[in-house]
């Protein structure tokens, strides 16, 4: 298999993600790691809570992966997404892409995270000291 897609409530293992995409044909690997930031628009964030509509989220991520393979000469592509409660510094998402040459790796990786944020049914709630907000829900 050249694609690995996973949704998990356990900490993501970045090194295994990278090991998985590496092949003897690879010349460049680009890895995007999302991390929980301690503030948003100047407001202190205590933690994030991620919820996924899992079967559909997997399906949408598979579509994104298929598109990336169509658009670029990708060798292996991995998307791991966390669910549940994440503290500051924890990792909600890891995307890793291996290619013979680096340009395709950068472009495909960026395409995957950009598209994931637009189409994959996963939701993030920011928890502040004085309340909580579902991100992007309102105009």
């Amino acid at each position, binding site marked *: 298999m050249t694609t690995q897609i996973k949704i998990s409530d356990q900490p993501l293992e970045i090194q295994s993600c990278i090991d998985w995409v590496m092949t003897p044909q690879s010349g460049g690997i680009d890895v995007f790691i999302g991390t929980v930031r301690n503030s948003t628009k100047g407001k202190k964030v205590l933690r994030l809570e991620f919820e996924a509509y899992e079967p559909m989220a997997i399906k949408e991520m598979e579509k994104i992966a298929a598109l990336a393979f169509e658009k670029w000469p990708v060798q292996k592509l991995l998307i791991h997404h966390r669910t549940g409660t994440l503290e500051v510094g924890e990792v909600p998402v890891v995307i890793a892409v291996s290619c013979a040459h680096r340009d395709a790796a950068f472009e495909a990786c960026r395409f995957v995270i950009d598209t994931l944020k637009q189409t994959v049914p*996963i*939701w993030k709630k920011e928890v502040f000291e004085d309340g909580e907000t579902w991100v992007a829900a309102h105009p």
Partner: protein
Amino acid sequence: MKAIVLAFGIAKDILGGPDITLDFPGNTTADLKSVLENQFPRLKQLRSYMVAVNNEYAQDCTVLTEADEIAIIPPVSGG
């Protein structure tokens, strides 16, 4: 028709739980949305929302059946 509607993210808060059962006139996504928005006006305050049928984004004209898995997809924010 009668449908079970799954709700996620803020839609779960608005509908008051992870799923509701609805009995509504008509059988399209548009019919469903119209009833939902009437019953839960806060849905109209969202930036947007989609309906998914059997794990695929549906159009307003998509025809629903009672066997379909129907879900409300508020604006996504993963990653």
